[in-house]
């Protein structure tokens, strides 16, 4: 979890509170919210990309082998990818394990 960085002084607050850093929300790691994490069993994976498309965080990405994995900095452990996986290749396991 990254710490929030607030502007030190009022002079540093942009006019209109405009944010000129698109996508800067990625500084905040929502992965700390997780109670479960997804584990891919690549032997079962059919590389359809359904887990990639259904992730609300957009944190599931395709690696160089064409298999998928979640970026654990952002994965909230919602379980949608595991639930939607056609060949049941994704398992949700507890964070503590």
């Amino acid at each position, binding site marked *: 979890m990254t710490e929030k960085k*607030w*502007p030190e002084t*009022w002079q*540093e607050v942009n*006019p*209109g509170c405009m944010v000129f850093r*698109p996508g800067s929300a990625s500084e905040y790691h929502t992965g700390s919210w997780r109670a479960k994490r997804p584990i891919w069993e690549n032997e079962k994976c059919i590389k359809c990309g359904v887990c990639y498309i259904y992730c609300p965080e957009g944190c599931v990405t395709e690696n160089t082998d064409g298999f998928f994995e979640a970026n654990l900095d952002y994965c909230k452990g919602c379980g949608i990818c595991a639930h939607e996986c056609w060949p049941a290749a994704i398992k949700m396991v507890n964070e503590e394990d």
Partner: protein
Amino acid sequence: MGKRVGMEVAIASAEAAALCRFDVAAVYPITPQSHVAEHLSDIVNDGRVDASFITVESEHSALSAAIGSEATGARTVTATSSQGLLYMSEILPIASAMRLPIVMIIANRAVSGPINIWNDHSDIMPMRDTGWISFFADNGQEVVDMTIQAFKVGEDRRVMLPVNVNMDGFQLTHMVEPIIMPDQEEVDRFLPAYIPFATLHPDKVVSMGTLGMPEIYAEAQKSKDVAIVNSIKVVKEVWKEWEAQFGRKYEPVQSYRTEDADVALVTMGSMGETAEIAVDELRKQGVKAGLLKIKLWRPFPFDDLKKAVKGIRVLAVTDRAISFGGPGGPVFSEIRSALYDVPKRPKIVNYIIGLGGRDVQVENFMDMVRRAAKGKLSEPYEIYGVRG
């Protein structure tokens, strides 16, 4: 050199906006502003200005659409009155917080209830805390001049704030007055094209209107406060430039015969012209009367006021609105507060005049001055002429 015409002031204000080459107008009609809306749409539909006129479905949407278009970098104008201003009031502080220099022409009209379409200032007074720069015009010429000045002041990179130009509904909007309309070429020289600080465009991605947590909200408000307080410098600069180019002088507080005044009236808006005549009449009768006309309401001209009241014994502040359950009229209470720390300050009395379009005549102003000479009225504030 400008052209001297006789023109209905509402129409003239739209003409002034046209001279400023606005890009978008988003206006909803309301009496007595309707002629402003109508004439702006005439100007657009005749192709006299290359612009879009959005026939919005409410005032709230008018200011909302104005924000949307100003945020893309389009010079935007809107106009309203009374209930319309109140309806869009949720958006006013957002426009100033977002630092968008929208210009709004307000035809001041009484606020309901009871419903009343005639002139007073009860619509603009509740908006004084919203962070908009506010000009008050005394006559048609000032309406035209201030509309053009408003774009220049608001768009200045040191300001970046919305500006409203206040003209009395019916008393000004529906009067045909002699006005020197500046030439397009003169206005182009005075008012350059708008170069926005930031715009909504994919080539430079920005998020506007973000969420301000408690950790930064105060800092954001401080930033806005500093901007509006410092804007008085820019207002005076622009007014100096205007005087140099067009020959007409503007000051935040304009004094009339106050060099040796004993009692001075204070007015805002078109009543000032009637008050001037009253001062002249009183002077003829040997009464040392004077008049202060406030042209810049926000940011409040503290220094100019303190200078203007030096030597005056009594101020008779006229208000065109009441702060119910409060210390009387808004102008009165702000002037009193502004002068509180000044060791030698005038006594101040408050007349609330001309509510809901009630006429105030020269004799009334003369009476106000005579009774104010005592330095105190029988009540903290007096609704002048109320029957019963």
